[in-house]
């Protein structure tokens, strides 16, 4: 007996960037199989070439017809492409300064590169799918590699703690996500996010409670990944314990992927926003307040930056809420612009902090930055740019990113969020300046080690990030215009007006 099994049509170009990244990782693994003695050079080269190729393949897709492929498993749209490009960029920047750092720390395991590449691929899947199972798959590919990378400094108790903490809590959050998927799959028989709108359109079916519950659980899982209060407790510990290059990658990539997925889930469940909007409203306030105020009392630079990344997640959540509240009026551009700027600032700052490692030792307390100004003036100069941008001082991109969010919040009636954003940003000046101040203290007596000499790659990363932060701010209007392209998630407008349609119009085949 022969049954007709459907064969999906595949748009290979949509899959090409992810495939390239994965294959680059496999080739790098193949090289590592032979345990090259001294240098990770060939592996870094392969990884960087693979990432560049993936970036080119992503760029080539801008302006192409958006739409789903692979039986709705993957989707090509502007949001996904921008975020994919961003993830590739983050990975590339991290690689440029990783090798000297890992050698200084005496943990030059080449497995870092493969894991980071696959993690990036997982993130890229997450941001370009509306299928919940693919979302989960991407999240796990992203996370499992991160768990290993966090524990890479295997002789340090802090690194082990970071890995096990991240793993246990992450597994717990994944369980929430999976349960949420089950609650939406139950009544609709569909794994597409469009199922949520389908249920919302038929309140008389009685499944509304299940859908609300399911969306709530999905949000919990994703909010954990994005480190939003009250699901943030892991972030400072993990960021502190993981090797600094891993922290840079984790802080940027995992946040981009989680926010991208969160944007899709929120857009798809826009019809249920009367239930979750009040909750997320308070989550945003709590995130901004806790992130910024807890950062004030930290004694460790990586922890401070960890809390700062929590606070930044709060800012970008404000942008998302403004978008979901009035999708026609406020495009997703603001959130994307903020994420781009956030990645540049974060990777740059962690790159400078990674100079603290020398000869197998590393101190990341504030006093370990003492005298950095004399030893690495260029890196500190760039750090000043990053910090100015994190604070939001006018000529930098950080200012515009926050300003756009502020405007969006005001124009959609989320005035309290705008006020909290402004006030907590003012509070953040104190701890950000503390980082800069520490680098200028000339007495180096309190240091654990002297700092390493900045490598060429690190200087390159600093230069690129600092220039980008400044250039993006000069070109804020055209850049956000370019991002604007069609940064509405597909089918969003229809999902609002005719609720029986899902986001994409391809669900409902039960």
């Amino acid at each position, binding site marked *: 007996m*022969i049954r007709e*099994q459907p064969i999906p049509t595949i748009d290979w170009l949509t899959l090409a960037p992810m495939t390239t990244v994965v294959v680059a990782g496999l080739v790098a693994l193949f090289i590592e199989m*032979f345990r090259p003695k001294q240098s990770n050079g060939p592996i870094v080269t392969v990884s960087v070439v693979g990432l560049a190729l993936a970036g080119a393949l992503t760029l080539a897709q801008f302006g192409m017809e958006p739409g789903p492929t692979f039986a709705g498993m993957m989707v090509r749209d502007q949001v996904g492409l921008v975020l994919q490009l961003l993830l590739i960029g983050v990975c590339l920047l991290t690689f440029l300064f990783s090798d000297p750092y890992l050698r200084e720390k005496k943990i030059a395991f080449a497995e870092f590169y493969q894991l980071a590449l696959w993690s990036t691929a997982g993130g890229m899947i997450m941001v370009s799918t509306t299928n919940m199972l693919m979302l989960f798959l991407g999240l796990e590919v992203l996370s499992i590699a991160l768990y290993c990378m966090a524990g890479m400094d295997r002789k340090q108790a802090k690194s082990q703690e970071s890995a096990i903490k991240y793993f246990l809590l992450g597994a717990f959050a994944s369980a929430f996500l999976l349960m949420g998927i089950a609650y939406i799959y139950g009544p609709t028989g569909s794994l597409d996010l469009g199922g949520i709108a389908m249920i919302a359109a038929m309140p008389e079916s009685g499944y509304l409670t299940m859908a609300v519950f399911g969306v709530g659980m999905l949000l919990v899982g994703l909010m954990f990944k994005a480190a939003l209060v009250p699901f943030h407790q892991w972030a400072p510990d993990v960021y502190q314990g993981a090797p600094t290059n891993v922290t840079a990658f984790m802080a940027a990539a995992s946040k981009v992927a989680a926010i991208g997925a969160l944007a899709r889930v929120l857009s798809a469940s826009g019809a249920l926003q009367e239930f979750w909007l009040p909750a997320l409203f308070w989550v945003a306030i709590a995130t901004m307040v806790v992130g910024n105020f807890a950062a004030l009392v930290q004694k460790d630079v990586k922890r401070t930056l960890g809390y700062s990344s929590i606070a930044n997640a709060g800012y970008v959540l404000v942008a998302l809420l403004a978008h979901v509240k009035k999708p026609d009026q406020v495009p997703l551009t603001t959130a994307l612009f903020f994420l781009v700027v956030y990645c540049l600032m974060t990777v740059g700052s962690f790159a400078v902090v990674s100079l603290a490692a020398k000869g197998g030792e590393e101190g990341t307390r504030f006093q370990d930055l003492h005298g950095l100004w004399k030893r690495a003036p260029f890196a500190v100069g760039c750090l000043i740019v990053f910090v100015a941008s994190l604070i939001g001082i006018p000529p930098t991109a950080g200012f515009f990113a926050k300003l756009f969010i502020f405007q969006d919040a005001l124009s959609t009636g989320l005035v309290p969020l705008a006020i909290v954003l402004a006030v907590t940003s003012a509070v953040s000046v104190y701890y950000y300046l503390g980082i800069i101040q520490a680098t200028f203290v000339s007495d180096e007596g309190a240091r654990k080690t002297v700092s390493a000499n900045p490598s060429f790659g690190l200087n390159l990363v600093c230069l690129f990030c600092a220039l980008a932060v400044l250039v993006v701010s000069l070109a804020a209007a055209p850049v956000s215009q370019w991002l604007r392209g069609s940064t509405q998630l597909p089918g969003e407008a229809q999902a609002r007006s005719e609720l029986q349609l899902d986001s994409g119009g391809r669900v409902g085949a039960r």
Partner: protein
Amino acid sequence: MLGDFMPILILMAVAGVICGAMVTLSWVLGPKKVTPYKQSPYECGVEPQGDARERFPIKFYLVAILFVLFDIEVVFLWSWLTVFKTGSLEFQVFSGAAVAVYMLLWIIGDAYVIKIGAIDWDEATSLAPEKLGLSPDAEAA
């Protein structure tokens, strides 16, 4: 409203009640004559020796986790085969190619595991000492 899901809810309720009843009732009704010998941990019927919280080589963990990975691989193959045998030729070619890619990933992983000696039962590492920062050469690099 929840009609479709009623059977599974009932199943869960019944399972909960039965498990709870068995544990609670045997605890409440069972006779308890406590002796020091009965209180001691059970270790195959012999006197327990030493501390149970002993450290043992991480190799066990590595072997266990590799076993789980390759076990999971078979689970996916099994479900694929059930649709493969009834599919059309076109589907068989398509899904066969997909599974070939999937298997290739496993084979590369397997080759990596064997090549670096992850399942060799000795304490040596296949990493060059330079990579571990043990040699002064690493400083110069």
